[in-house]
């Protein structure tokens, strides 16, 4: 399967530590023995905002989940910051915004508690939250347009605000590679613009962004390159 790429804009000229934030060569991903997506070649450089598009069932989410190790890599190679995924340990450098609201809610959880949980990858198990961690959480809340919402219960937020809270959780870890799975699906235009602004800001600092999109909407302006997955033969 060949991926068509469509350059939109040159990546921001920023100092970078390594050439590639994410490289996939001949990747096949899926669950069990079924590959949902095969023959993926993708390279994302720091500072780029790459949109992954394609019809329903093309395997967009599976690609993202495969990179993160949430489903199996059945063939090919995945490298994160030039390190093969199997040997990659610096997961705190990678942020993830899942497709839907996957936060289970039996016990009341505040927005700050959710967003703080995104910082945990940068802390050791017994380590307490420091000033830098609290600042990172404040910054993340502000960039996601949720300043002042930190004591609110997650359950009391609208759908769009909950999606932005999930974005803030990913931002709290100061990711150098951010993977977002349809962050704007079912979100009002105002929230979409907030997300677009946040991603543009993040890319300007040299982070690489991969965003799965069904409808580009306001995000079209910040995307530097679009990768389209063909839908044929996909199952997942």
């Amino acid at each position, binding site marked *: 399967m060949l991926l068509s790429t469509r350059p939109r804009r040159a990546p921001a000229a920023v100092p970078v530590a390594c050439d590639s934030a994410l490289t996939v060569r001949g990747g096949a991903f899926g669950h069990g023995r079924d590959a949902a997506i095969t023959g993926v070649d993708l390279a994302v450089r720091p500072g780029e905002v790459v949109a992954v598009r394609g019809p329903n069932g093309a395997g967009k989410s599976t690609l993202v989940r495969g990179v993160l*190790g949430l489903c199996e890599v059945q063939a090919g190679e995945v490298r994160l910051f030039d390190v093969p995924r199997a040997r990659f340990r610096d997961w705190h450098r990678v942020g993830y915004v*899942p497709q839907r609201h996957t936060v289970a809610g039996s*016990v009341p959880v505040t927005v700050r508690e959710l967003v703080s949980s995104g910082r945990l990858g940068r802390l050791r198990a017994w380590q307490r939250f420091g000033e830098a961690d609290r600042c990172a959480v404040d910054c993340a809340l502000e960039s996601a347009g949720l300043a002042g919402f930190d004591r609110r219960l997650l359950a009391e937020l609208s759908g769009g605000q909950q999606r932005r809270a999930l974005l803030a959780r990913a931002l709290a870890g100061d990711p150098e590679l951010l993977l977002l799975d349809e962050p704007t699906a079912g979100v009002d235009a105002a929230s979409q613009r907030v997300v677009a602004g946040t991603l543009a800001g993040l890319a300007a600092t040299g982070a690489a962004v991969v965003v799965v999109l069904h409808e580009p909407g306001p995000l079209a302006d910040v995307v530097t390159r679009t990768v389209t997955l063909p839908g044929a033969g996909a199952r997942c």
Partner: protein
Amino acid sequence: MLSYEFMRLALAAALLVGLTAPTVGVYLVQRRLSLIGDGLGHVALLGVAVGLVTRSAPVLTALLATVAGAVAVEVLRARRSASADVALAIMFYGGLAGGVVVVTRAPAGTPITLDSYLFGALTTTTRGDLVLFAVMAVVVLAVTIGLGRSLFTVALDEEHARASGLPVLGLNLLLAVVTAVTVTLSMRVLGLLLISGLMVLPAGCAQLVARSFRSSLVIAALIGVTVSVGGTAVSFYADTPSGGTIVLMAVAAYAVLSIARMARRGSPRSGPDVVPAPVRPVGRPGGVPLPR
């Protein structure tokens, strides 16, 4: 009441259990594993029976059986197999049935009967027991408070925790072991059939009134201590079984808080109960199997 040595020991044991069990329960409720403690209580019974038959300490054999059961539960959940639900049922009821059968082989004149483990026999607590209980309580609290942030993150969103590089399986196993320790710690106070009540009901109460996860943990522990110590005192004066009295007080606390909340908000439908159910991405096999 405090002039009796056995009541002082009983109240101390009730305090330890009332403090520890709800701190574990909050994580179990958040992970929708409320009934796991009940299942592990069944498995513990086999351990107790083996302890009685072999004339070794039933608390230790129960601890071994429960820890093994808890680890098996987590391994089954991690494999996400469709038959995991049935496998759990087999383990839980196999444990209960095994306990009932094995205990009949206990040597004649065994002082403690299975009943005291099923429904609790708080007033038989000895000084030696209390030292063991205190050690277990410290272990449990070290994990539920010390590693609270990690356990919370996994309980909140297991998949995101895995993507962040957290040792999810290890943390789940740790919570499972701590649950097992709590079940064993609580069995003399509450009885194996009522253990889940003190783990889950205070967490349920906290869910009604708390405004954050951290405050849920604190409120659950406060309610746990109150009903546990209060229930023990009531059972002394009213001459009722301690385990049942404690759990009934927790049920009453839940009822009072629910009514208070309904009265305050004017609607029973608002609040944490209306949180959207977790939606799993398409293509991911199965959800989290319930314990039973």
